[in-house]
């Protein structure tokens, strides 16, 4: 069966989400949003899904701080983060490239990462540009570290990194290659990854989404997505376009 790369990623992310109570998705994250809604469809209305930036798709009534308070209470189980740079220790950089006093590149800023990365049990890293420019040996600026000294209060952190080429898991401060997406190779992943990572002797191919999953995504999830991500829903799922 034919599927788009976005559908493969969303299916994989939905599986990473697993059986949790509450998934929150940050702004401008249509693929994680697709995955969260897919997980909710599969779970008959659970997990709760909060899509930030959309009052319709969040339940917050205590202002902009509620997301963070909620995470601090342990009530957010899964969140998604990205980075201008991500390194092999799970550190993410959302601020700058170059020396701090005279940066060469400036990104928007750390947003809530310097907090959420510590207190959300499953943080899924997500970066569609898999290159030595983005996946680096050491980030130039640590918006949030992948790990801390054992005495530092930390109930959360990275569990996986998904890219356009492959899926890594993360534990004990290291990434481990889990699977390579169809059409990509282990050699290619090594070539385009700036950091060192572990891998099993045999690296499986990322399994394609099932026909059932594709149907659910296209027919049930896509229309829900269209309110917040109309362009994405139209491009990927053809939703909002009149049937031919």
């Amino acid at each position, binding site marked *: 069966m034919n599927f788009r790369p976005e559908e493969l990623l969303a299916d994989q992310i939905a599986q990473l989400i697993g059986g949790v109570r509450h998934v929150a998705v940050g702004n401008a994250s249509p693929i994680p949003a697709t995955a969260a809604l897919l997980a909710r469809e599969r779970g008959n209305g659970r997990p709760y899904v909060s899509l930030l930036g959309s*009052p319709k798709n969040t339940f917050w009534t205590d202002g902009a701080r509620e997301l963070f308070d909620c995470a601090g209470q342990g009530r957010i189980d899964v969140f998604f983060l990205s980075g201008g740079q991500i390194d092999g220790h799970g550190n993410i950089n959302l601020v700058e490239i170059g020396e701090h006093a005279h940066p060469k590149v400036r990104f928007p800023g*750390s947003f809530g990462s*310097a907090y959420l990365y510590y207190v959300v049990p499953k943080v899924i890293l997500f970066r569609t540009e898999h290159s030595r420019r983005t996946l680096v040996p050491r980030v130039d600026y640590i918006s949030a570290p992948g790990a801390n000294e054992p005495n530092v209060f930390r109930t959360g952190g990275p569990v996986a990194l998904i890219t356009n080429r492959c899926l890594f898991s993360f534990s004990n401060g290291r990434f481990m290659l889990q699977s390579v997406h169809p059409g990509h190779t282990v050699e290619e992943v090594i070539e385009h990854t700036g950091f060192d990572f572990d891998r099993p002797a045999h690296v499986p191919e990322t399994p394609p989404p099932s026909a059932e999953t594709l149907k659910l995504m296209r027919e049930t999830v896509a229309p829900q997505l269209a309110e917040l991500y109309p362009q994405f829903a139209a491009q990927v799922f053809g939703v909002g376009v009149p049937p031919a």
Partner: protein
Amino acid sequence: MSQIAKSLDEALDVIADGCMLVVPREVSGVPMDATRALIRRGIRRLHLVALPTSSLQADLLIGAGCVETLETSAVSLGEYGPAPRFTAAILAGSIKMKDATCPALHAALQAAEKGVPFMPLRGLIGSDVLKYRDDWKVIDSPFGDNDPIVLLPAIRPDVALFHAAMADVFGNIWIGRQRELATMAHAAEKTVVTVDRIHPGNLLDNPTFAAGTLPGFYVDRIALTERGAWPLPLPDYYAADAAHLAEYARMAATEEGFGEYLEKYVYEKQAA
């Protein structure tokens, strides 16, 4: 004795050069008419606190040379790309940047709201956000055992400035679910609000409305600026002007284009 000013400029005259000004994120009611008026007035040396992020508003104020210090967690035009004047100013070193993380700004404003000198926050330890903030302290929590925790000093702005759907003649403001606007007003010395319209009657008289109302007690000045968040959205009321934001992103990509934008959309408007 009403807080409703005769003009936008009159309402804004409590915002002085060099003051610490707190403004909300894009979806909580950004006072864009007021922002344009401040640029026309030529305000300078602002310590701008964007709670907890900003988009067009910070980019415009920075591009127009109004900002000395920026304290926020991120500035971006969202789907319209990076904030070009913010990025240029950082690379040129022309503004002082105090990078934060969203909950740290909320907590620091809540410290001022509660009249305490600081607020603790989890996270942050081991990040460069903390490393470059010499105003933040790490202590060993007296309730833990070798448990380091960050203390953030209270942020007490001189002025809180935001846009809301409506005020009544008693100065009460409908803020709905945007409760950080109440925290901003509680934390700041003075509060200036622009509104799309004046509500007849007293918002506090009705228990349903009262639940989403900032009492006029905290509000110093109000100006009526219809669709005053344009081209940004006022959620529950109107959407962003996507075409205009795309035009901004295009024009502001260069210093020269940004100048043309100011001429066309900020200075020209005064004549209108």
